[in-house]
């Protein structure tokens, strides 16, 4: 199974915390769509022998497109790739783009899953993050979407400096009241180069408090788990049968093709990423050349990535898979490195699977790094 990711690099306005690639000018939209279609044609060989089971419109804000535009792109995939019987076709959407009319159009289009960027049901939070929608829109859109779509995911952000724990609890309650089967929930992260970073540095906005974020994360995990969600990835919770196929491909090391500026592709052995510049991307594609960089992953890179992504998921890191794909010395190395954390119960072994405990979850990057294998230092 393979995935196709299509990056729509346009937004109506910039959120203060976002470091994804986008442009707030829609002038080049048509040129961009033509380039995306052309890239799909140029790269179809890359998925030869593979069945596509997920198409994902990410961004940016894909909901700035209308259904004719999304259908054009979907049709291109259907025409030139082998697509499975019941593909998951996701559209990332913002509440302010989803009028009831537009929702109706998407409902009858090939899109069958919505990922709605709600972030919060409170105006103070939304203003803090410079989101384009307000709380009222979020609620209304969600209510309408629920009538048209079965498979809906919403995004929620916790650890917002101005939001107290009580408000976060209410956010979760409200989300649950809409009966959505999937929630992606992220700790607010201060990325370099973002407006949020600048505000914090200047003291305009209080710093993000890790302790508070951790408490909110714990509340999130326990509440959603008792509501029947599976915590299948650090920031993702789904009811059985509703896990994101597209994202699961990333964490399970499956093949995916990333179309559009800044999109990443992976085929099990090499990763490539398109240039993060709309103009240069369009120009390259128009000239029939893919403006991308490639890296070939070594066994060690693949091992490190598997450990890193595996620890984030409920599937953990399978020692058997390590042994099969990388050899027994990788398995022994992994266990040796894990020893200390197993003792301290940040990690635990469940049969042949290594997993992060609840107390280790919020520290899992550092834990993964400790299990990494580095290139042998050259001895002269």
């Amino acid at each position: 199974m393979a995935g196709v990711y299509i990056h729509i690099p346009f937004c109506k306005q910039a959120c203060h915390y976002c470091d994804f690639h986008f442009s707030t000018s829609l002038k080049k939209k048509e040129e961009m769509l033509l380039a995306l279609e052309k890239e799909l044609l140029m790269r179809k060989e890359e998925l030869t022998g593979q069945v596509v089971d997920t198409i994902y419109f990410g961004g940016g804000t894909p909901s700035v497109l209308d259904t004719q535009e999304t259908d054009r792109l979907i049709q291109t995939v259907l025409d030139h790739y082998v697509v499975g019987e019941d593909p998951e076709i996701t559209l990332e959407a913002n509440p302010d783009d989803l009028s009831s009319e537009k929702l109706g159009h998407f409902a009858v289009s090939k899109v069958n899953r919505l990922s709605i960027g709600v972030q919060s049901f409170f105006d103070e939070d939304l203003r803090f993050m410079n989101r384009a929608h307000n709380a009222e829109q979020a609620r209304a859109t969600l209510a309408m979407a629920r009538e048209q779509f079965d498979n809906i995911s919403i995004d929620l952000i916790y650890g917002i400096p101005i939001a107290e724990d009580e408000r976060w609890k209410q956010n979760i309650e409200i989300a649950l009241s809409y009966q959505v089967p999937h929630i992606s929930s992220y700790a607010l992260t201060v990325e370099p180069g973002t407006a949020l970073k600048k505000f914090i540095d200047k003291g305009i906005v209080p710093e993000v408090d890790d302790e508070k974020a951790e408490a909110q994360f714990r509340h999130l995990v326990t509440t959603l788990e008792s509501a029947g969600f599976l915590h299948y990835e650090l920031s993702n919770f789904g009811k059985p049968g509703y896990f994101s196929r597209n994202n699961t491909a990333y964490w399970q090391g499956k093949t995916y093709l990333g179309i559009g500026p800044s999109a990443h592709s992976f085929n099990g052995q090499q990763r490539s990423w398109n240039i993060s510049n709309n103009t240069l991307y369009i120009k390259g594609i128009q000239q029939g050349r893919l403006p991308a960089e490639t890296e070939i992953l070594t066994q060690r890179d693949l091992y490190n990535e598997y450990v890193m992504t595996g620890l984030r998921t409920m599937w953990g890191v399978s020692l058997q898979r390590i042994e099969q794909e990388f050899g027994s010395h990788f398995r022994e190395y992994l266990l040796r490195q894990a020893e200390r954390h197993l003792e301290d119960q940040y990690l635990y072994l469940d049969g042949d699977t290594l997993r992060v405990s609840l107390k280790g979850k919020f520290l899992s990057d550092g834990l993964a790094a400790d299990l990494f294998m580095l290139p042998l230092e050259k001895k002269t």
Partner: protein
Amino acid sequence: MKHIRNFCIIAHIDHGKSTLADRLLDFTGSVTERDKKEQLLDNMDLERERGITIKSHAIQMEYTYEGEKYILNLIDTPGHVDFSYEVSRSIAACEGALLVVDAAQSIQAQTISNLYLALENDLEIIPVLNKVDLPSANPEEVTDDIVDLLGCDPEDVIPASAKTGIGIGEILKAIIERIPAPKGNVDEPLQALVFDSVYNPFRGVETYFRVINGQISKGQKIKFVATGKNYYADEVGTLKLTQLPRPTIKAGDVGYLITGIKDAREVKVGDTITDADNPTKNPIEGFEDVKPMVFAGIYPVDTEDFEELRSSMEKLQLNDASLVFTPESSAALGFGFRCGFLGMLHMEIIQERLEREFDMTVITTVPNVSYQAFTKKNPDAPITVNNPSDLPDPSTLDRVEEPYIKATIITKADYVGNVMSLCIEKRGQITNQTYLTTERVELNFDMPLAEIVFDFYDRLKTVSRGYASFDYAPIGMRVSKLVRVDILLNAQPVDALSALIHADNAANIGKKMCEKLKELIPRQQFDIPIQAAIGAKIISRETIKALRKDVTAKCYGGDISRKRKLLEKQKKGKKRMRQVGNVEIPQQAFMAVLKLND
């Protein structure tokens, strides 16, 4: 012999010594275009990068002056106070010295102490005013400074620019006309001064010498007086840009000797080489066994690398005889070595060479000087304390003595107040103050050597805005009120972080150490208390708060590669840390006390 001139160059760091040497080689045609590179004599990478000379070097030039051919032996000396003994031996091998003074910066402390050494050895001094081409040059005033210092005629000072070549002809002329030819008798028994040695992995130790009397020939049976060992001279020759073997080197000349010695410790700088069968009755005066001034523990980051560290240290010692080490063990760090160094620069160099040449990542512990402790039971028998943990229990102590030095500081008059406050804070006692000129003051202090080890240079530069220069010489041991400050991490004492500190400063330094360690030790999964203690008494405390969040929220297609690389880097950083108990301590934390005021 009357056509030989032996000379050295005395200069402060950055005043242009190595560049001037390059220019002299150029002018006398001693280098071909092909061999030309900057700072030709500084052939260690470290020397080039740091712009300092660590080893002594020698090179022979030929120069025809007024129809006669002269042999000029330039002996390039190390440029740092850590190596002042080597400098003194190089000076003893010469009849003259070029005193190079930067026309913008004027005379510095180290220049003066080396100048005094040269004058004690009756060297003819040729003052050279370098960098006269710089816009900031102040030739008139600096010439006056030189005249004041040397009592020479202003006409004797040669304006020059080693960079552009101004004055090089005049300098060569002065070398020939003003520096006396060596005196010596070829017919007397061999008497040659060892002024340096270099380790060559293929040929063994190469000894650099100056023949005072007699001659040394290939095949001769020779004797090193201080070590008492005999060897055969397998090869002797002249130091051109490369070595040029010759049958004999006669009195007055400089050369190299190869005997197949494999261990640098057998060749001691300052030793006398003589004929084994017809030895001289007069060994050359001034020989000293060089003693280390600063001690520190060196430990492998990975305990498994101990044996490899040992073999690396042994190899390093083959070409650096001034490095001494004995195995020691630390409760915190396991097995390592207590090493003695000539000074702080020497310590840094050893650490860097271990990393570069042997790929050994090491932890260097807080450096200390060598103390002497006397117990009540046995108040006349000194116990040498090269490691704070060797200090006997305070209740049994009669007294502790620490090494003192005489510090010479030259500074601009404006900064005398600042320099004095610093030296007094560092337990210095002023012994003398002299105005060299109206603008420049020489200050002398008696100070504990230990205080110089602890962030003295950097602060001296800061309080004097870079103007003060500094030199020191040991003046013996004095009684001191010292206590051991221990550091506890997570309630466990970390012996490698202990330091001997004067009782009056202990509380303040203990507090600063805790603060510094808090800054340097990364947050871990749990709270880490840091405590400073004297005996059982806690004098200061800080806490490193536990890491609460160490995970990125998003990890999608576009994040994986970047994130993997980030975590790989993180792991690399951790590999350079040492785990003590369950706390990971970065390398630099062990040296934290040196940088308490940063």
